């Protein structure tokens, strides 16, 4: 049972960054901008927030008010991601640049910038920004000391403030998308910007909003990933930005489906890492480096699922096309 609790706990932990970043991608694409820069946005968000956590740790503010410090770091991650995404918004909305190329450029810039800043602050060669231990929420500091059993293990095995925040943000995203004026207008800009324009909606503004929201969520997702990965920030997020795009497509650009897709994907990733300790899985002993077989699992499963669902998948119609008011 402990294994099961551990697996579920880890699944949720790794689903959180995917969920956040995929939701970010959804906002951007629903407004009509393909945000392939999510990977870079995650790196920037993680960089700024881990640096902040490090500073809180050194100053003593962190150990004294751990969760307040994390909350501030989350906001910093979001805001820095937002700031970084402004570059994409400016290039693709004002300059009408190719969104894929602009995004790729940002993806290449971010890790390089992160390495420079990390070394500048920590000294040359210190490539990892370590995460302070007080960041984690344990049963003890949650006031539930001595909580035992399946659920306690599930919840507290590896809990960070980002997890509840992500769940709240998902609910908020879903609400904004489907129940508010902003959501309706945003979606119309990704589907048929000319129609939106003809009823007086400022398409450029809506697209800026979409990209900025995605920058915020992407930045927070970067922090969430770094916390989940556990070994500190090393100027990269292991391709999670791209995985999140797959999750977003798999989730059909809808918040709840994205949550399901994120859990699904994270589950197979965790199965991969825990394969050795799950008794009933075949172990392929006769193959060299057989541990990699299970590590491939999430990617293979995703490909199969995408193939199976691709017929039903429906991207926003106008995504990727710069909006030009004058065009007929």
């Amino acid at each position, binding site marked *: 049972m402990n294994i099961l609790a551990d697996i579920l706990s880890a699944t949720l932990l790794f689903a959180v960054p995917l969920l956040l970043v995929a939701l970010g991608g959804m906002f951007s694409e629903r407004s009509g901008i393909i945000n392939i820069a999510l990977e870079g946005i995650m790196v920037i968000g993680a960089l700024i927030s881990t640096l902040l956590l490090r500073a809180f740790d050194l100053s003593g503010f962190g150990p004294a008010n751990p969760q307040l410090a994390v909350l501030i770091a989350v906001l910093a991650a979001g805001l820095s991601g937002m700031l970084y995404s402004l570059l994409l918004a400016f290039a693709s909305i004002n300059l009408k640049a190719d969104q894929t190329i602009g995004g790729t450029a940002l993806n290449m810039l971010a890790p390089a910038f992160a390495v420079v800043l990390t070394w500048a602050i920590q000294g040359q060669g210190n490539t990892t920004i370590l995460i302070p231990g007080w960041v984690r929420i344990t049963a003890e500091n949650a006031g539930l000391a001595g909580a035992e059993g399946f659920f306690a293990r599930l919840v507290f095995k590896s809990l960070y403030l980002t997890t509840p925040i992500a769940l709240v943000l998902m609910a908020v995203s879903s609400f904004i998308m489907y*129940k*508010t*004026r*902003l959501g*309706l*207008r945003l*979606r*119309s800009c990704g*589907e*048929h910007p*000319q*129609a*939106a*324009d*003809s*009823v*007086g*909606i400022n398409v450029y503004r809506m697209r800026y909003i979409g990209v900025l929201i995605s920058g915020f969520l992407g930045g927070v997702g970067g922090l969430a990933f770094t916390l989940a990965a556990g070994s500190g920030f090393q100027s990269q997020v292991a391709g999670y930005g791209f995985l999140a795009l797959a999750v977003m497509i798999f989730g059909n650009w809808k918040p709840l489906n994205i949550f399901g897709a994120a859990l699904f994907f994270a589950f197979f990733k965790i199965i991969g890492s825990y394969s050795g300790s799950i008794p009933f899985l075949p172990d392929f002993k006769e193959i060299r480096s057989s541990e990699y077989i299970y590590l491939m699992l999430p990617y293979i499963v995703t490909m199969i699922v995408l193939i199976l669902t691709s017929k039903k998948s*429906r991207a926003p*119609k106008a995504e990727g096309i710069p909006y030009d008011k004058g065009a*007929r």
Partner: protein
Amino acid sequence: MSEYIIEMLNITKSFPGIKANDDITLRLRKGEIHALLGENGAGKSTLMSVLFGLYQPDSGTILKDGAPVKISSPNDANALHIGMVHQHFKLVEVFTVLDNIILGAEKTRWGVLRKDEARRRVVELSERYGLKVDPDARIEDISVGMQQRVEILKMLYRDNEILIFDEPTAVLTPQEIDELMEVMRGFAREGKSILFITHKLAEIMKVADRCTVLRKGRLIGTVDIADTSREKLSRMMVGRDISFNVEKKESAPGEKVLEVEGLTVPSRLHKKNAVKNVSFTVRRGEIVCLAGIEGNGQTEFVQALTGLEKAGSGSIRLKGREMTDMPIRERSRLGMSHIPEDRHKFGLVLDFTLEENLVLQRYWEEQFQHCGHILRRPVREYAQRLIEQYDVRSGQGAQTIVRSMSGGNQQKAIIAREMDKEADLLVAVQPTRGLDVGAIEYIHRQIVAQRDAGKAVLLVSLELDEVMDVSDRILVMYEGEIVGEFDPRKVSVQELGLYMAGAKRDDKKEAV
């Protein structure tokens, strides 16, 4: 209070290479239906876009109730209670009817949509004006006629008093057109003022009070419908007399060119066959018309004939050669020309230049390429010849991007390309859809000229006038089958209508 609710005075608007509106004045009275008539490219849509705030005029003023106003966005237009139904509907396909209606004019509390209230109002408006819609249906699932009603409701929902209709009847069936006319009259009785862009004279005579005519960006004049006639209006519009009847000699059918036998085509939309066991032939020197109401298998039939879609069973022979499974290029080289139904989707590459579009089916020929390199000069010269011969007008000649051309000239480009091929069979599908009388007359004459040159012509049309005027033989298609064959001189429109609606059918199906 001014006599006029809207006055557009001395409006001028230029685009690169073209003066779309040149010193145009239009005055709209309260409660009237005012038609705006002109050929394609005459500047009607531009003028209305200026009024709706989509374009800024280079010079000129707009008065509302006698006071000057500035309309720099659709928001401004909306605030002045000006609404517009665009020719290409501005509807978000995956949204519901209700969402489309409220978009941009949402009622909210703290940014949260209040749809219940909006729904009540939409239902109330739809009942009051007899505009039947289902608020929860998605746009992509409803008919074009209902989509138009959604567009009209959008205007009513915003309390618009000045309603602009940009070519509203182009996409409607005859019954829907009658309904729309009735709705428009109802609006006018209520004191709403209507601007009605069209190039269909019959509709103007039927519904409008006054009519303003534009030609090539200039104002020709404004007339009272009561004092004018179809002929006068068409002369104003085109600048010369137009014959409404197609003049042609007796046909002299020769050998068989196209033979279709037992052709069946599966449908993409449902499990049944869209075309069922269709057989007929087309001979040299005759125009055979495939008539029918939209959606009775004509589209699928043409797609199988031209190779866009695979045939289920049966055979198609061109000049005696089996071509049922031939690739499209082979069919074209064997001797088939095709003027497609959807010129944007199948006829042209919209973002290519005119010259590139004109050689689309022959760029691989020796004269246009050398070792895989396109030879620019021969292409240019060839394009220039076609442009002159077929009078294709555009802003920058052979190098114009086709998307920026008017619909009529786009169609002329296709016709130039297809007719210059000198193919033995011409398949023309809805060749005059959405075009003005001048262009229609031109295209009809070209089709008849092809026939007289000994080509076989298969014309697929939904327009009964066209069917009666142009064809030598009429085949009526209903639910994928040919239900009757007629001589246009011996059958009435009413009779044809009965066959097209499926109320009558001939049992001997083998039309020869």
